[in-house]
């Protein structure tokens, strides 16, 4: 979260609003889908996520270019996933100088809860071309089931 300079002259209402905004941001980062279907939300917590549903499995994708897959850790607790990692950029040599520096290095950690129960024993995680992909199958109890109707 951003560190904001304390300004005693700022009125209490704007601070209250900022607090509300921060709370909403934290909530949205942890329950991203709650904003509605396909809501485009700009998160403050790295990495940005897309979530898809193929009817049996959720697919979560995150763009993490330059992050070594060995530096990514994924943890599932119930229906909550936590992605943790670090992006390390190559150190330029002693005789090198930057003309442009737009890329950042640093650590990241993001937790989010899936909209439906998942079977967290069957989660698959992989990284291809700088995109992290998680496959999270629905839990048995969340699967669509046909029920035979019989005379009672």
């Amino acid at each position: 979260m951003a560190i904001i300079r304390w300004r005693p002259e700022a009125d209490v209402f704007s601070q209250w609003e900022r607090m509300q905004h921060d709370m909403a941001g934290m909530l949205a980062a942890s329950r991203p889908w709650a904003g509605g279907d396909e809501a485009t939300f700009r998160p403050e917590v790295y990495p940005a996520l897309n979530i898809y549903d193929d009817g049996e499995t959720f697919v979560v994708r995150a763009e993490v270019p330059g992050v070594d897959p060995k530096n990514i850790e994924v943890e599932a607790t119930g229906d909550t996933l936590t992605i943790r990692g670090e992006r390390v950029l190559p150190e330029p040599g002693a005789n090198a100088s930057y003309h442009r520096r737009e890329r950042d290095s640093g650590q990241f950690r993001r937790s989010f809860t899936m909209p439906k129960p998942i079977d967290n024993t069957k989660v698959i995680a992989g990284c291809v071309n700088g995109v992290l992909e998680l496959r999270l199958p629905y839990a048995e109890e969340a699967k669509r089931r046909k029920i035979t109707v019989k005379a009672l």
Partner: protein
Amino acid sequence: MATTDKRELEVTEKKPIEASGGEPTRQGITYTPQVDIVEDPNAITVYADLPGVKRDDLVIDVREGVLWLTATVGAHPDHWQPVHREYQEGGYERRFSLGDRIDTEKISAKLENGVLALVLPKAEAQKPRKISIA
């Protein structure tokens, strides 16, 4: 929160390229990739973030002293219903003017973990050289 004093990464919004003076010729969104450009005595190295780009979908092209980087990114499969979206998938494009100090014959490129490393060696005449005084 990070457990050490290392800095935390923040989300940087992808910057779509505005169509300037004309219709875009390709479908979909094209982004400006973020780059680092580092110069050392022998070469200039460009690092470009190109998440989702496969090697076959990346074109590096030098025309009239300008290096063009063009990449496309495939969309997600049709049967995946988007539930939530924080970033858009799109291609990338960026141009770099090389001037005459780069030996364009010796440019090399490597794509790893979604990052392109492009090494642009300097032309021999441009390399620093110690001249001994007789």
